[in-house]
């Protein structure tokens, strides 16, 4: 019996002769059966890491292992033992959905009967039956994404790598997709999942790493990353366009401004004072709206990266 733990150690990628770092000294472990989230803003280096794992990019330094296999030295093993859903669209314009799934299953070394059975189960579970015979070129973006997921997981490797699988997928099917991602974990497969959707990740990943500027800035379970926010509330202000950041009262423990969004963190027991301050800013015309909410993983994310997560609504409703 192999232990199929995935281990990255000191993984680094530089471009332009070492001047730009796409990622830097990344070390991670993903246990079999674990759904591991990779979060971080655009350009953080998430896709670079997953491409290094599957062997499309060669790390400038560091090592990548899956169980007994050295993935950098043996890219054939990497391609066979890892399933990979790229961030880019799948090349299936001229494939019917079921053909694309069956053929990738066979290329992944699956046996025909098992492929048929699991393809049917996944198609049903993701509610895409009506497109089973549709040509890839005629699929909507979200369905194409789901078909890509089925293609790469119909015969899953020991490590399934999904680069933004929920992009373009509608909310209902996103939930179904997350269920299937959890199922992969239950099958004992390790899953590395890149996403910008912090709230969904919070509910569905076992552990996660936040990557910013190529480095891992935090790693742990969703609740361990939220520890710092325990007993705090998020007070989010939509500032009037063009105004300077107002002076912050002492009750504000932490704040980040992105565009006209001012996200501040206040102690739970000072909720009343916080609301009063927000209302005062609104009456002065400095803010247009505010919202007070329990802290989520998003607040840890904002603190760690200095950016708002992608699923954050532009104007938070009061």
């Amino acid at each position, binding site marked *: 019996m192999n232990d199929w733990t995935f281990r990255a150690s000191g993984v680094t990628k530089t471009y332009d002769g070492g001047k730009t770092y796409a990622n830097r000294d990344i070390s991670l472990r993903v246990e079999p059966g674990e759904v591991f989230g990779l979060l971080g803003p655009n350009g953080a280096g998430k896709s670079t890491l997953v491409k290094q794992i*599957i062997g499309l990019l060669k790390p400038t330094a560091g090592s990548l292992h899956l169980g007994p296999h050295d993935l950098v030295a043996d890219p*054939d093993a990497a391609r066979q033992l890892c399933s990979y859903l790229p961030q880019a669209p799948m090349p299936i314009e001229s494939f019917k959905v079921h053909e694309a799934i069956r053929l990738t299953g066979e290329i992944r070394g699956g046996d025909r009967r098992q492929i048929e059975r699991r393809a049917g189960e996944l198609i049903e579970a993701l509610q895409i039956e009506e497109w089973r015979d549709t040509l890839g070129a005629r699929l909507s973006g979200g369905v194409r994404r789901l078909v890509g997921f089925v293609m790469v997981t119909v015969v899953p490797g020991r490590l399934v790598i999904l680069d933004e699988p929920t992009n373009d997928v509608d909310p209902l099917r996103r939930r179904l997709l997350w269920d299937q991602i959890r199922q992969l974990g239950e099958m004992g497969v390790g899953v590395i999942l890149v996403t910008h959707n912090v709230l969904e990740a919070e509910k569905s990943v076992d552990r996660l790493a936040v990557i910013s500027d190529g480095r891992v800035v935090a790693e742990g379970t969703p609740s361990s990353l939220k520890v710092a926010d325990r007993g705090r509330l998020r007070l989010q202000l939509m500032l009037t366009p063009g105004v300077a950041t107002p002076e912050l009262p002492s009750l504000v423990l932490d704040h980040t401004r992105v565009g006209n969004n001012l996200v501040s963190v206040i102690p739970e027991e000072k909720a009343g004072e916080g609301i009063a301050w927000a209302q005062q800013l609104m009456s002065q015309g400095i803010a247009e709206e505010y919202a007070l909410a329990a802290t989520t993983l998003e607040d840890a994310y904002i603190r760690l990266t200095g950016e708002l997560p992608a699923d954050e609504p532009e104007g938070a409703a009061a």
Partner: protein
Amino acid sequence: MTAATTTYVRRGAGHWLAGLKAMLRWHLTSLRLVLPVMVAVQLLTASGLSIGMSLFYADVDARTGLFLGTGAAIVTLVLVGLVVAPQLVAGEKEAGTYDFTASLPVPRSASVVGWVAVSAIISLPAAVIALAISGWRFDLTFDVSWAVAPAVGLVVVCGTLIGYAVAHGIERPTVTQLLSQVFAFLVIGFTPITYPPENLPGWLASVHEVLPFYHMGVILRGALTQGLVTDVSGSYLVVAAWTVLAGVVTAIAMGRRR
């Protein structure tokens, strides 16, 4: 839910053959929407070239007729591998779909051999039709020897590998596309295939002594006719050398991780 996961790394001949079969299906299905058009375009081009030449050179002796009559078929066989693979790979790179294809768990060499077969599927029917039309227009009888199999095989493999080496060896898809146009231009206009090398300026004729394209024509004529060309074995050597070179470049380019 039930699924068998990959638990070991497949290697060896069985895995390679399964990979070849799968990639052949993958390539053909990927081309499904364009393949009929490609075959048709090749058919039209090749037969157009044959008919055009027969109209232009209405009264020729048997020897010249034989030379002209084999020209269109040869241009087709040489050109398809050179042009189609670079165009398609460049297209994949531009659309961003190249990464997925490159991540498929098949031996790279099996994928390449699959492509060679696809090139043959596109070019062979057109070449055969071009020969038939020329035979009828110029009233020719070809003298096809057994050598036609290795000759056609080598030309298709060599052309496809050169195309593939360019497609994978050059990072920028626009450069690849430009180069494949240059190939087409070079082969159709400035290679002594539809005319003898004596018609070219001396320096260009000597360049073609080392390039593979003229020699591809020689080995194909050697297999299709009798006594029309000489030193066929020398040409085999040149084309074989280019095949090896292109194969090595392709292997390095495809094995290279960015």
